[in-house]
């Protein structure tokens, strides 16, 4: 019974939202906005649950010598940001909150993002090793694509034509095939959820 009510709720909600997609009236639009607002409301309530879980886990880690440093940094950072965020005008330029945000968090995030360049290099090295026929084709194709960025005189226009063909014909064909498969798979999954065939996400009875 505990599982039946959510399944009926999902069935009705799913069918209503499908109908909503085809009805352009004001009522339909309001319903869509209302449903999305509910998602936000549920997310806000769940955020408290998430923060509680995070703090509980980190306080527990303080007892572990291996974890104490990381847990300590997280808890100090959390409370500093929490209390500085309570102050009026904390989003104004120059406030303590924004100073920490702009001078510590943003550079750390940028550093992490920039690591991606090195990871692309190491992943590309492995992917482009010409061990098989397909890997060799991949290597040659990548080589042609990369040449596009280098000035090669008269060869540039020939290379540019080849690159355009690779990107707009075989590459696009593969991407579209995946996109269509993803689209149909997503619809099939939605049907399974709406009809109650797929119910793993609901947990136990």
């Amino acid at each position, binding site marked *: 019974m505990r599982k039946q009510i959510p399944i009926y709720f999902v069935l009705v909600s799913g069918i209503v939202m499908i109908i909503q997609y085809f009805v352009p009236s004001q009522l339909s639009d309001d319903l869509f906005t209302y449903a999305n607002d509910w998602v936000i409301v549920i997310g806000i309530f769940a955020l408290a649950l998430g923060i509680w879980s995070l703090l509980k886990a980190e306080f527990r880690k303080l007892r572990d010598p291996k974890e104490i440093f990381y847990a300590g940094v997280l808890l100090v950072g959390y409370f500093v940001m929490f209390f500085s965020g309570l102050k009026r005008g904390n989003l104004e330029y120059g406030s303590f909150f924004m100073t920490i945000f702009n001078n510590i968090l943003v550079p750390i995030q940028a550093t*992490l993002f920039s690591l991606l360049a090195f990871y692309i290099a190491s992943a590309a090295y492995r992917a482009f090793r010409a061990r098989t026929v397909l890997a060799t084709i991949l290597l040659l194709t990548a080589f042609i694509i990369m040449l596009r960025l280098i000035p090669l005189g008269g060869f540039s226009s020939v290379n540019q034509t080849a690159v355009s063909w690779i990107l707009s014909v075989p590459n696009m064909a593969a991407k579209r095939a995946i996109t269509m498969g993803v689209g149909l798979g997503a619809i*099939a999954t939605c049907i399974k959820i709406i009809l109650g065939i797929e119910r793993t*996400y609901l*947990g136990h009875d």
Partner: protein
Amino acid sequence: MARKLVLVLILLAFAFVGVGAQGAAPDTTGPPKPAPPSNVVVLDKPNDMGHGLIIKWTLSPYDGAGLNNVLAYEVFRADSVDGEYLKRGVAVKGTGEYEDVDNTESTNGNRNPGYIAAGRTYHYKVRAMASGNVYSDFSEPASGIPIENWFHFGKVPILVGIIIFWAFVVYFILHARKGKEFYVRPLAGINAVDDAIGRATEMGRPILFILGLGTAGDIATIAGFTILARVAKLTAEYQTPVLVPVNDPVMMAVAQETVRTAYLEAGRPELYKPENISYETAMQFPYVAAVVGIMLRERTATNFYMGVFYAESLILAETGNMAGSIQISGTDQISQLPFFIAATDYTLIGEELYAASAYLSKEPVQVGTLKAQDWGKAVVMAVLIGGAILISLGIPFIKNMISVNL
């Protein structure tokens, strides 16, 4: 005396010429006025909420012909025929149509004068504009009523597609229930799940399951929950911990419930630890830092990446690779698939992620939906090939049939 009379007559003659010249000034000294547009009609904008009207007119005779001095058309609107007409917009020359849409009733409590209410009559006039701020006379006014529509006819092809696909799904589910068995192509990534968990058990290390940066409502994330259920059940049987760091509190609640259920089904509820499914942060790169930290500190033997991923995919997968973990990934994000293919051992490409639940459960009903997907793909291919052939022959029948007007 006669000379004076002649002088007066000459002055009078000049004066008359001057007056005459003054009266004809607009025609001879300034740029000429364009002729106004005509036959203005106001139509309801189809398939909308009733906040739009389409104004059509016949072009000015001086637009592309005659004096050819029309630069644009200005569209004016009033609430009554004799009311104040306010300018609503401009259409460039050669255009005989303007779409007036405004669904904002008020902003910060102030009434928006441009708002179009459904069911109310609006009056429009159009005039042509030439260079030098010279305008034609206004056209005759025309009126129209915006209507709130209850069905979007532009989406009919989508509706037909969905009905056909639903029919396939229901047909194959019914067939599966009657006992018909369907063949499902083996998925290497799913077949490797048991081995990957076995390896972690032998090494005595935990398993890391990452659901990506989506939300609990994303289809890929829901597919990830299904695979998590299977993985958690196996880890419960092998007594190997599974760690699930998430970026969304709702996902945390669903993941906890999924893993708890899996442990119950495996008959090992005492092994379930809710703290292993933890909320880390909602921000992308702080989440990456948290997950990478877990990978390196806990030295996870097996990493699963199932869900929606963005730029963090390669950072996570490469870190896992360098840490020596066996890795299985799956996402519907096309831009991230090459990264996963390059950096992980097995990858579920696009729809394979959705197919995983049917493949894992082996339930006839679930497998039936996979067959429906295959038939759906066959129909799409047939339409694409048929459409390409017909459009090459100059017959746009299929193209028109499947065109969606949003």
